[in-house]
């Protein structure tokens, strides 16, 4: 039996299919104007690649911001919060993981799981963009670099500058100020990543960080944020063995298997 998960987030949408305890396929796209369209598109693309039809998937769980609409449209049988899905997906991949730091486009979450793979506790940022992927996007736009470059560029930093504020708007002003002073972009990039990590670390401390720890979500691909988080929290992150952006959809597929009745 095949099970599916669809995760429609603020910036990207993913679909995952699992069968016999293995990931059969996954797909990630930039979101469309509405969540149902995103879900239809990403699931359609994945099914087409796998040569499957919607009815070939026994049970589908939707997650992410569009989860309720996606279910209401009949694309999924049930919906589960992305907090549970990221936790379940991470533990399915890495059974020893107890803490998941998930940083997406518009929110950051720190999720604690217990030994039986159940959600133990979580904390999520408020609506401020600081500490989320959006913060990095704004800074990249100001620096004139891509998101991918942000992580690699900061490895070349020699004298990271101090960014006094964690507010995205104020931070952008500070970055502009450093650029006008001729500060090396690498030094600014490193500071942006550090500011991001400090913000998320503060969130993580609210629920406590229990090893093993891993990261999911798009920002997990930024090695500099990851290593700054390791330094601040004093932990080593277990690398995510799949694209960290699909962990939510994977968790949804794993839960679909549970909810859909396969033992």
């Amino acid at each position, binding site marked *: 039996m095949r099970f599916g998960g669809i995760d429609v987030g603020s910036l990207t949408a993913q679909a995952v299919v699992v069968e016999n305890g293995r990931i059969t396929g996954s797909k990630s796209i930039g979101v469309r104007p509405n969540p149902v369209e995103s879900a239809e598109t990403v699931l359609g693309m994945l099914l087409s690649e796998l040569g499957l039809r919607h009815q070939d998937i026994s049970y589908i769980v939707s997650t992410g911001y569009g989860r309720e609409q996606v279910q209401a449209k009949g694309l999924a049988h049930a919906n589960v919060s992305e*907090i549970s899905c990221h936790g379940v997906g991470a533990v399915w991949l890495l059974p020893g993981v107890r803490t998941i730091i998930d940083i997406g486009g518009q929110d950051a979450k720190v999720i604690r799981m217990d030994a039986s793979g159940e*959600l133990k506790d979580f904390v999520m940022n408020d609506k401020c963009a600081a500490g989320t992927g959006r913060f990095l996007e704004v800074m990249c736009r100001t620096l004139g670099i891509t998101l991918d470059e942000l992580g690699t560029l900061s490895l070349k930093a020699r004298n990271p500058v101090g960014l006094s504020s964690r507010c995205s708007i104020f931070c952008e002003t500070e970055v502009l100020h450093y650029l006008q002073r001729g500060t090396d972009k690498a030094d600014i990039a490193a500071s942006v990543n550090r500011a991001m990590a400090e913000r998320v670390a503060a969130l993580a401390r609210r629920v406590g960080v229990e090893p093993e720890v891993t990261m999911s979500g798009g920002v997990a691909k930024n090695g500099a944020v990851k290593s700054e988080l390791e330094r601040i929290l004093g932990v080593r992150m277990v690398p995510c063995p799949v694209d960290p952006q699909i962990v939510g959809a994977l968790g949804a597929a794993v839960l679909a298997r549970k909810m859909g009745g396969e033992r």
Partner: protein
Amino acid sequence: MEDAIRLAGDILNSHLEEWRRAGGRIVGYTCVATPREIMDAAGILPYRIRALGKPERELADAYLSRFNCGFCRACLQLGLDGTYDFLDGLVENNGCDHLRGMFEDWQYAKDPAFFHYLRVPHTVSEEALEFFAEELELFREALGRHFQVDISDASLAEAMERSNRTREKLRELFSLREGERPALTGRQAMAVILLESSLPPAVFEDYLARFLEESERNEVRGYRARLLLAGSATDELALVGEIEDVGGLVVSDALCYGTRAFWNLPRLAGDPIHALAEAYLKHLLCPRMFDDYATRLDYVLRTARRARVDGAVLVHNKFCDLHGVENVRLRLDLEEAGIPVLVLEKEYGSGADLGRIRTRIQAFLERIGG
């Protein structure tokens, strides 16, 4: 009950308009530490100011900073934009500094005909009770002087008796809410409390009798978990609606727009001013009081156990200093007592944040197995 929710969703409801047409006066107050009976005895309708989750702030932000609680800013906005022009006066008290700022800016900008500052002590002692009783006497005198009315002990006793009856029935209704088969939703219960402080007392008594009759036959079904809602001044029917929409039935609360307004107040009897001073000060379950954390925790725990909740949602508005701090302690103590907790810090009345709030509530329900 749905009619009641619609009525509670109006700042100026039809009964208030009728009251005004008949020449009745209305005085606004905010804090539950204000003995409404003194106004009732004067024939004045005591109206508890609310903002009902309205998000506009632009006028208020010219007076209060953005680092003030959104509830206070939203109330001030409604004061400044004329929504509350139907009030004949305001009663300020020192519930918290944000609230004081709200009242004093309102007074400065609108210069209401009647404005009284009712000081409420922050401690409970014989001296504090004596002080508060004097404050209540001053309040009685100020009301009587301004509105040209004699507030006799007999009229106070009558108002107290009406309060006793209302509280007794409210307890009865809320017991049905907390029961094994909850008779009303949290949203309905909040609407009842909002009506209680925005209707002529005699009119509310009639409504209450009807709610009781309806609730005895009613049973709420289809929820995933029983929740307790506690925290800062929360009059947002929409927020409770969101919590219940994802399956968390709010079967009880420890809110000042909820059970804290009436549940533990004793039967009022004896010398009116002293009885009121004692009832209101000794049973004020707000973190604005010093040294009373143990009493407040005990109230929350008792409520949670009585209502057999599966978890508690502790809510506070951004920049609500009192409840922001209180919720940290409460969370630790409730979790230790075996009650799972979700702390929900939020922007007051922000519709844009509802998606994120829903996610947190849904995840919390998943966490507690609901």
